[in-house]
């Protein structure tokens, strides 16, 4: 790992006003991403985990400059991503790509998959026209598809094969940073393993840096070098993978891990954590936003919001009780 991060994000905020209708008064603000600092180092996978609606996909898109952010900055190798002139931004976009969750929705049903991938080359004017089909076939081979597949339409493929096409499309521009947004959640278990292994192999071959977004802790543990746990707009814990899974510090991380049903009948949970319902993201509690579901909450949690504090050199947690909960 290099010491200088490939991607550096500081104080990212993505707030969305909520109105009942276009002319109605403001009902409230959803703070989907509410002040997130992240660094990704070359060749690593940072896992981002959390419940649905916690802002993990929004954060991934914010890092790519795909949604307007309301605060903070993102730098790719020291160059700001967000305030570039269009031509420069287009060049930078080649370096940063997104792999979508649902391979059924991410491909145009009326376009051959080869065409869907080649468009990226056309737009960026890569290679001669005559060479582009070859480039597409090469990337298809890399993701485990055959050259003749380029002429087919999405409906002719299974979910796993479609996800291979989506991966080919993201990688054909040879990006350095890739956001994988739940890339296997729409796939069956037997196919999921194929895609995870493919993503790992491609990462090694091309020194890719992944932000790997998933709600599945098993998948995160398999893929990630470091893991960030997100709760309604904030990173509440971030640590090196093994450390996080062996010694989770934040009560939310612990509850999340305890709630995952272990695929082992001899390790049946005697007590499942009772967390109550997830909160309405428009009305999060003051202070620590997890406190109304937290079994460990104390008075201070309602008064002040805890910041991420280092509990070891590779582990940070945002909890007032960091020192008492071990």
């Amino acid at each position, binding site marked *: 790992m290099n010491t200088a991060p490939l991607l550096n994000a500081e104080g990212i905020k993505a707030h969305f006003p909520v109105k009942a209708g276009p002319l109605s008064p403001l009902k409230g603000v959803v703070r989907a991403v509410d002040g997130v600092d992240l660094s990704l180092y070359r060749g690593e996978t940072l896992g981002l985990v959390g419940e649905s609606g916690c802002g993990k996909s929004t954060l991934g898109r914010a890092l790519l400059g795909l949604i307007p952010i309301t605060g903070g900055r993102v730098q790719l190798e020291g160059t700001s991503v967000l305030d570039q002139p269009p031509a420069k931004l287009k060049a930078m976009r080649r370096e940063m790509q997104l792999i979508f969750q649902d391979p059924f929705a991410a491909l145009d049903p009326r376009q051959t998959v080869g065409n869907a991938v080649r468009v990226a080359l056309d737009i960026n004017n890569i290679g001669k026209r005559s060479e582009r089909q070859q480039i597409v076939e090469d990337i298809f081979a890399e993701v485990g598809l055959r050259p003749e597949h380029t002429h087919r339409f999405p409906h002719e493929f299974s979910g796993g094969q479609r996800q291979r096409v989506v991966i080919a499309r993201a990688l054909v521009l040879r990006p350095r940073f890739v956001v994988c947004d739940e890339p296997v959640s729409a796939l069956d278990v037997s196919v999921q393993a194929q895609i995870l*292994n493919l993503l790992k192999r491609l990462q090694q071959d091309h020194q890719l840096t992944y932000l790997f977004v998933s709600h599945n802790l098993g998948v995160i543990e398999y893929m990630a070098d470091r893991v960030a746990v997100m709760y309604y707009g904030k990173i509440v814990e971030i640590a090196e993978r093994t450390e996080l899974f062996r010694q989770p510090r934040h009560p939310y991380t612990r509850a999340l891990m305890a709630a995952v049903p272990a695929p082992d009948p001899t390790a049946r949970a005697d007590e499942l954590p009772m967390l109550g319902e997830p909160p309405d993201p428009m009305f999060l509690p003051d202070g620590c936003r997890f406190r109304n579901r937290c079994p460990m909450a104390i008075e201070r949690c309602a008064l002040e919001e805890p910041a991420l504090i280092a509990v070891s050199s590779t582990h940070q947690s945002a909890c007032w009780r960091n020192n008492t909960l071990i």
Partner: protein
Amino acid sequence: MTALNRIPIAERDVQEEKLPLLQVRGLRTCFESHYGSVTAVNELDLTVYPGEVLALVGESGCGKSVTAMSLMRLVEAPGRIESGQISFDGRDLLTLSTQEMTELRGAEIAMIFQQPKGSLNPVKRIGSQIAEQFERRRGMPHAKAWKLAVGLLERVGIPGAAEKAKAYPHQLSGGQAQRVMTAIALALEPRLLIADEPTTALDVTVQAQILRLLTERCRSHQTALILVTHDLGVVAQVADRVAVMYAGRIVEEAPVETLFANPSHPYTRGLLNAIPRGNHYSESRLEEIPGTVPVLGRNPEGCGFADRCQASYAGRLNQCSTQTPPTTRIAQGHTTRCWIYHSGDAQ
């Protein structure tokens, strides 16, 4: 009381002597399509005892939801149950009249669906949707039925039930909506509950609560539960017995501990090895099952798993692609459908 307590193994043996609540024999459900008849469920045998949780596991398209719908006789055209027997408490459901079946649904066998919000009536208060059961089936006056509905909402863990009963489905979270679905299903105290992926649309923290609600009910009321799921973690945590489906057939059935400790069918083994979990590290690769889930009806002869199977190498197993393997019993309560286990001296 522990959260997800199972029936201890010793007691389960005793249970085998109990009369089964549901016994399915040779169930076959087909769908007519442009390409001819597609068999979604084939030669399916299933036995469920009172108070137990039977997990029906498999990947998308393997026929587990069609099985669940078949048991409720809710398969609609172009689908139809071709043959078989579904014996519930001694009565063959396939011979009942439509009227008799309607009376049985909800009262004796109830179903919980995957998408709770899609399954609730969006323009009716949730209290009324529960109360309706008592009004229609038990001829109860509305006020009394409403009271029972509120009581049920309390029992499934909806805070402020009296107020919440007046809410409409869109005012509920996904977890709450699934609790309401569960309340509707439990209203008439059915003896068999069929839950089709009840927690797939929910977050893990909420999933844990719903599973707990369902299993506690099984233990306290001797309600039998058929849990349709693709999540082997859920299976390991709540099931007593497991039936693994592949391409329309049950390929392996065993008590949950046996299945995880000693899986016999190559598909089950592949599936268990393909789950990402803690003991894998970046250096080791996750085991893959090559190929993809087959399109149903492509290969009516032969084992549905043959072309993905890593065990079907030996010459003597060339019947894998030409003949469907029979169900072989390999231990007490453990059956498998694979030629490897079928030899002349085996049963």
